[in-house]
């Protein structure tokens, strides 16, 4: 189990997407993957061999992609629509509003190379507003897996019970394989990754930076600051029970590879603003600006989204 988990975590997430589709196609003749000229990178040959009609190519036309995917989903097919994260969300936001929001078409949008992953391609390809865009649309589930094992688990869960959803996929060189043993929590529930003894600090993370959050907690512990770490793979609907359990903390820290405006941290702050005696919230994310092209690692470092950066920002907030 663990060796298989480590193998999967070591792959490119796009390869894992294709492996997962091939696995689903063996048992689900309704599986459909609607692409917009982003199929070759998704390792879909095995799925196409298993189920040729599952593959639908729209060309570089994301509006058509969401419309076609929605109609297929409403006719009963189990439909995933992958593309670059920013193009399958903000570029087609009105299609997402009408088709997934108003019409509740059970399409699973899959945003690839989200966050800073495509940083070398510049601001046009970074997806730092995608969570903010999609989570304002009523009825759309938003999921940010922390690693490839969780990605595969989330895709299988959603394909077996389709609903309007957005799966945000980002991956960095320093990622940890958090779910090497498999995903054990119930879908939608937050998962405690680290219990700090009498911790006054709770670090909440979504997506692959959950690994940096864990490393940051280790650093803090060495310096005498105990922090628990909780992963929220599902940003919407948010596991508010898990948040309510944080009432006695001194500081809640949110970590995400998304802009600090409107993302996971904002969702946490929105909920806690209604909780009497709620702790302070320190939101860590990408700055509210369009950034010049750079490596993902440099972009994350400058935003303070490394283990060291997170630990320093937490200490400064506690000082």
């Amino acid at each position, binding site marked *: 189990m663990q060796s298989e988990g480590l193998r999967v975590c070591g792959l490119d997430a796009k390869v894992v997407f294709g492996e997962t589709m091939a696995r689903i196609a063996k048992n689900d003749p309704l599986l459909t993957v609607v692409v917009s000229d982003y199929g070759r990178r998704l390792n879909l040959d095995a799925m196409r061999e298993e189920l040729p*009609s599952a593959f639908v190519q729209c060309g570089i036309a994301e509006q*058509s992609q969401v419309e076609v*995917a*929605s109609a297929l989903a*409403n006719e*009963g097919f189990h439909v995933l629509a992958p593309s670059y994260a920013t193009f399958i969300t903000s570029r087609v936001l009105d299609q997402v*509003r009408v088709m997934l929001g*108003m019409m509740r078409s059970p399409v699973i949008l899959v945003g690839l190379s989200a966050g800073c992953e495509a940083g070398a391609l510049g601001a046009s390809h970074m997806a730092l507003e995608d969570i903010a865009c999609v989570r304002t649309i009523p009825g759309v589930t938003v999921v940010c897996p922390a690693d490839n094992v969780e990605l595969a688990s989330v895709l299988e869960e959603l394909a077996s019970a389709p609903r309007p959803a957005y799966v945000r996929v980002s991956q960095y060189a320093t990622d940890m394989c958090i779910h090497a043993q498999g995903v054990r929590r119930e879908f939608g529930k937050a998962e405690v990754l680290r219990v700090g003894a009498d911790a006054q600090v709770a670090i909440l993370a979504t997506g692959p930076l959950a690994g940096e959050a864990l490393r940051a907690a280790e650093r803090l512990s060495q310096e005498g600051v105990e922090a628990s770490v909780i992963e929220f793979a599902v940003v919407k609907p948010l596991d508010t029970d898990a948040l309510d359990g944080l009432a006695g903390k001194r500081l809640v820290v949110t970590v995400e590879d998304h802009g600090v405006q409107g993302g996971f941290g904002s969702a946490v702050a929105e909920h806690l603003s209604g909780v009497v005696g709620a702790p302070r919230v320190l939101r860590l994310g990408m700055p509210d600006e369009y950034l010049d092209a750079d490596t993902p690692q440099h972009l994350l470092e400058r935003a303070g989204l490394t283990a060291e950066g997170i630990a320093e920002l937490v200490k400064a907030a506690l000082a």
Partner: protein
Amino acid sequence: MQSVATETRTNPEVTRKSARVSGIDLALRAIEVRRQVIEFARDYPDMPFHLGGSLSCAEIMAVLLSGVMHTGVDGTPWEQRDRLVLSKGHTSLALWPALAQAGLLTQEDLDRGMLGPGAIIGKQPKRCVERGIELSGGSLGMGLGYAVGLALAARRKGLASRVFCVMGDGECDEGSVWEAASFAGHNSLGSLVAVIDANGLQLDGPTSQVLDSGPLSAKFAAFGFDVQVVDGHDVEALAEVLSLRSERPLAVIALTVKGKGLSCAENDVKWHDRCLDDDGYRRAVEELEAARREVLANAE
């Protein structure tokens, strides 16, 4: 797969539904659609209805729903029904009476009014498949892509269902229309029919002046469609071209008059979304009654 599925229908050679509804009846139904459009306008005097475009597509809606489509409530198994996507949802005032004529909407549905949580009908369609309303409307340019997806679903399921998408000529300004048209042509979606209510006017003025991007017939042909240009107020001609089938998608350019049937509104851009006053209502009723009598007189 398509041809096999076609045989599941009783008479695969005839895509036109039946001879049950005659040309005279279709013409009368179109006038009744107009009459109901006017009634909606009177019932909701403050609503900025799109009367011009609703009146221009009355024959299109009546012919599709009463003369051409297998509606699923006419003996066709529901799954095998033809689908209607009203992409220009703004003109839903013509959809409601045509759906009612086809037996897909009841008087009770209509009586629930157009506003509030209990309404079935409204200024814009809200998806309700069991009543034949496939698309939630309001945001232009999304219908053809959705219709393409429905046609693809029918192909994959091996159904003979056809998919009709009614659009405006002004709506064809939207780039998403052409993304979908490319897909339909490239994939030879022979079950897809794009019906363009070409009334030549849009909100800001004549379509030729707002964004004249060349003849729609040549554009759809270039995208791989068979194209038929037809008088959009001639029910017999509409029924004939809408029943054509080939291996390629079909675009029917229906040349229409915006505001048709209401002389003060015809070809007047102000009637894109103008409200109807009492005097206008009275004149409309008289003119539509005269049109009805003319159809009946010609029938004799």
